[in-house]
């Protein structure tokens, strides 16, 4: 009897140990060290966007309405059918769900999502713009994107009573455009371009007036884009629970996501770059992504600095509302910035595949797996930073990290901010009424690794 009791006790003990081994640290709650708690609380809550002194109408509601109308308006483009929303589609997380952008042509890089762009310090993957309004101007005139020109846009504003009224209500009277050519813009590095010739034929003082209107268009678009903010995610609720000791709020995050968070702030070292409440340091790094030798070499930040310093619409230029802004005063192209690209925010990251500046990875799992193994990573150059070390994650740890990243999706975004705006005040039709079905003109490249993607039926604005 006694030996039976002992054996039974040992059996129960063994079962308990086995259960702990299987479920122990994945029990009801994950324990975080004081250092981990401190790091986690550095990432929430997300404060309102910082002010942009270079744009005096950045937070003007009327400018935002005007900007929303422009964002969805194809008349900015050369063919009247491509708008900002063509690539920055709200249905695709303000990106386009594909490896490259497709406007009038194919872009060299993946379309960055617009979530929380107001928190950026630099814009584009290479940081070649230092304000959201100056960033908006470049795709408008890029021949493979919207393909418009600033003189034609000024004529469009002047010719449409609704647009004219919206513009003048924010910025004051449009200048006199009589006698200006229908189309003109500066075109760099293309000798003999007719648009460049037409631009140069315009007197200098009138070019300044046109540039002023063009910069105002960008400022209105910025006022709208500053509203595209993702916050109040399940992670934020969890962080609040951690801060206040509210266990109910802590349980909002699954055990898997909590373990992923533990990796994120700990062994994963993700916070080296994805730091702060916006989960981005806003600076540039080289991930040593696998090289696609079929594409031209992309210098990233290195060339971006040069382009930014030459941009007539940068923060210290004539059209900035705060030219004393010293953001770029200390900027210099460094050798180690070669091949570096901007750290994107991770808020709403689950909504915006594919990932990285060239859309290398089709899913978050692929991204995490790359960090785990650094398989096919480009060799480190002489000037490259050596942040990355293979993490050697288990399959469960990869799933945990992906679960945490998915918990960064914020509350639903207001529908009225995701659609074209009718400035005339008539009730707007449904979103789909503004779209026409469209087959892409160009074959879209497959994801890296040879896996093909289904061609997404893209849509264009009427």
């Amino acid at each position, binding site marked *: 009897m006694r030996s039976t009791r002992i054996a039974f006790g040992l059996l129960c003990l063994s079962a308990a140990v086995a259960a702990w081994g299987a479920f122990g640290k994945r029990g009801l709650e994950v324990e975080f060290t004081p250092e981990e708690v401190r790091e986690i609380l550095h990432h929430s809550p997300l404060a309102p966007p910082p002010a942009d002194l270079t744009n005096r109408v950045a937070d003007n509601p009327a400018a935002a309405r005007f900007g929303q109308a422009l964002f969805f308006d194809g008349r900015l483009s050369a063919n009247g059918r491509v708008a900002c929303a063509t690539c920055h589609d709200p249905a695709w997380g303000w990106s386009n769900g594909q490896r490259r952008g497709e406007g009038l042509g194919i872009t060299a890089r993946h379309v960055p999502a617009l979530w929380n762009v107001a928190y950026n310090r630099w814009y584009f993957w290479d940081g070649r713009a230092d304000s959201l309004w100056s960033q908006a101007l470049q795709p408008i005139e890029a021949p493979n994107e919207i393909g418009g020109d600033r003189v034609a846009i000024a004529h469009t504003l002047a010719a449409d009573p609704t647009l004219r009224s919206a513009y003048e209500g924010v910025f004051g009277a449009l200048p006199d455009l009589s006698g200006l050519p229908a189309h003109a813009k500066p075109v760099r590095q293309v000798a003999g371009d007719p648009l460049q010739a037409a631009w140069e034929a315009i007197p200098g003082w009138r070019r300044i007036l046109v540039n002023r209107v063009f910069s105002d268009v960008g400022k209105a678009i910025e006022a709208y884009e500053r509203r595209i903010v993702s916050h109040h995610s399940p992670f934020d609720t969890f962080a609040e629970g951690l801060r206040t000791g509210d266990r109910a709020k802590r349980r909002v995050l699954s055990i898997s996501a909590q373990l992923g968070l533990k990796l994120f702030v700990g062994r994963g070292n993700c916070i080296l770059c994805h*730091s702060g409440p916006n989960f981005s340091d806003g600076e540039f790094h080289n991930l040593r992504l696998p090289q696609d030798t079929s594409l031209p070499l992309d210098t990233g930040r290195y060339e971006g600095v040069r382009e930014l310093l030459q941009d007539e619409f940068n923060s210290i230029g004539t059209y900035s509302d705060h030219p004393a802004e*010293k953001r770029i005063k200390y900027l210099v192209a460094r050798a180690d910035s070669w091949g570096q690209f901007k750290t994107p925010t991770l808020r709403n990251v689950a909504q915006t595949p594919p990932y990285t500046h060239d859309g290398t990875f089709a899913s978050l799992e692929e991204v995490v797996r790359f960090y785990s193994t650094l398989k096919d990573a480009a060799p480190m150059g002489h000037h*490259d*930073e*050596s942040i990355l070390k293979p993490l050697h994650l288990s399959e469960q740890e990869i799933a945990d990290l992906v679960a945490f990243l998915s918990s960064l999706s914020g509350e639903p975004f207001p529908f009225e901010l995701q659609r074209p705006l009718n400035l005339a005040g008539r009730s707007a039709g449904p979103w789909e009424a503004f779209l026409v079905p469209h087959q892409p003109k160009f074959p879209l490249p497959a994801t890296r690794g040879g896996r093909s993607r289904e061609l997404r039926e893209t849509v264009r604005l009427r």
Partner: protein
Amino acid sequence: MTGVSPCRAMPLAVVLAAACTLAACDWRSIGVAAVGSTPSGREASIASRPLYLAHQRLSSYGRFIVLYHPFPDPIPVNESFDIEVVVRDARDRLRAVPDVTLGINAEMSSHSHGMNVKPIVTRTSPDTFKVEGMMLHMPGQWTLNVDLTHAGITERAVFDVVLQ
């Protein structure tokens, strides 16, 4: 009533008195004011400024004493900040070195990278330089390198900065 005997209380009282005296002093200025002879007017103004002894180093060949003070303090992560750097003769800490030039950079040796910015250095007084536009964009251990060139020879003062 029993109490502590005067013989035992006296050393304790001395220790307590010394502690109170030190606590009442600006300890940061003691290290400078105590060196050398009684300073004259202009030298007194230099010597009486509070200096942060934790941010003080000798240069590599020992010719200069270098002190820095960040603004804001502590140094923020991934935000622009300025530094005031004071450079004095290591053999006479009250004496500035007027013809020394200063260069500065920061690096994370564990990551093999430096800053993404090039700060601007301005001399504001015989012994003081203002460095504008520093930014340490990642948390972790940085090295702040202050290079001082005098009479064709460059020396370096190295400071460790840990950002969290």
